[in-house]
């Protein structure tokens, strides 16, 4: 038997519970502003890793209606293929009836992930199932008073929240700064620059930032991520980069300027300590290069800043969490 040590460090995502069907079957899902579809594993799934998750038993739900349609979704860290069905979905007290959702038939890349499926909160035009996303369905069914939702992501294991229908001001301090979307249809805004210690290190002359609650890191173009890593004096180890944990307190913040307002992310937020006491930089290079410089600002950023997603006015609000 050959053994190979695997070096792991703990990254994080935020999950919440929903139920699907009648009687309700409960699932843990990631509430993801980067995608638009709801899907969960199903008993139809043939992939080995499906059995380690809760699987939807469509034959046990009296409100389930099949739709003869297949679809596939590819995420940054995994992919799934499935069929589309409709059923009653409950998120807390919110009930979305006849909600289209995906039942996975094949999935990969979600091995060992501590959640069952994904609940997409992006615009309908980005749906792969072709069905109406759950937030649009709730809005159309009059289940929510205002077409907004918001995230507070805590550093602690508990206490985080996604709120629908309004904004609870107790979760942020100072002003809520609104940023218009580049265009309605994606939670993407214009960013002015990324700087460290007053020096611009990326996003010269402006770029795009995709605000993504389903992504744990901050992701950017490889060349620019490497530049930031060099600026920090990070050393490569495999495909990751690390610094001495004792140096973390001396590292500068990474400052994201959006709509003229500076949003610093301190070193304590963009580093992760692994089990052996090494501190990894939680920045990732995007393997896909696009003509437009795009940064995905995920949980690393959103744990610092309370974020509001306003479908009524096509804008994002950011405030100190």
């Amino acid at each position, binding site marked *: 038997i050959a053994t190979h040590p695997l070096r792991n460090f703990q990254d994080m995502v*935020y999950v919440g519970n929903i139920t699907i069907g009648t009687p309700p079957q409960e699932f843990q899902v990631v*509430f993801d502003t980067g995608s638009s579809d709801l899907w969960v594993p199903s008993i139809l799934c043939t992939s080995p890793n499906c059995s380690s998750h809760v699987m939807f038993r469509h034959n046990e739900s009296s409100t389930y209606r099949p739709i003869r349609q297949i679809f596939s979704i590819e995420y940054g860290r995994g992919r799934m293929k499935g069929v589309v069905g409709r059923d009653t979905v409950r998120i807390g*007290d919110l009930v979305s009836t006849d909600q289209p959702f995906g039942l996975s038939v094949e999935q990969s890349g979600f091995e060992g992930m501590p959640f069952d499926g994904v609940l997409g909160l992006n615009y309908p035009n980005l749906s792969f199932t072709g069905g109406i996303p759950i937030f649009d369905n709730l809005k159309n069914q009059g289940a929510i008073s205002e077409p907004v939702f918001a995230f507070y992501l805590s550093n602690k294991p*508990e206490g985080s929240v996604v709120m629908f229908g309004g904004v609870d001001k107790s979760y942020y301090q100072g002003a809520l700064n609104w940023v218009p979307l580049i265009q309605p249809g994606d939670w993407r805004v214009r960013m002015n620059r990324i700087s460290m210690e007053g020096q611009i290190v990326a996003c010269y002359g402006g770029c795009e930032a995709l605000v993504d609650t389903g992504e744990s890191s901050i992701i950017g173009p490889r060349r620019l991520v490497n530049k930031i890593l060099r600026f920090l004096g990070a050393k490569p180890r*495999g495909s990751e980069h690390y610094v001495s944990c004792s140096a973390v307190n001396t590292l500068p913040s990474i400052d994201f300027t959006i709509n003229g307002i500076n949003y610093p992310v301190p070193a304590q937020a963009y580093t992760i300590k692994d089990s052996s006491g090494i501190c990894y930089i939680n920045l990732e290079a995007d393997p896909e290069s696009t003509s437009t410089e795009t940064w995905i600002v995920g949980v690393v950023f959103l744990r610092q800043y309370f974020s509001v997603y306003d479908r009524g006015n096509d804008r994002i609000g950011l405030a100190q969490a």
Partner: protein
Amino acid sequence: CIVNIPLTRVTIMRKTHSEKNMLNNFLKEHAYRLYQTSSPGSN
């Protein structure tokens, strides 16, 4: 009228890309063998 849904922070074990590929390849081979040894028509 605000509906609050509590979220739980969960940790995931992140692996380097090469290790991720090794694991995925292993799982693919493993799954293939499982299919080969299972009887036709079984779940």
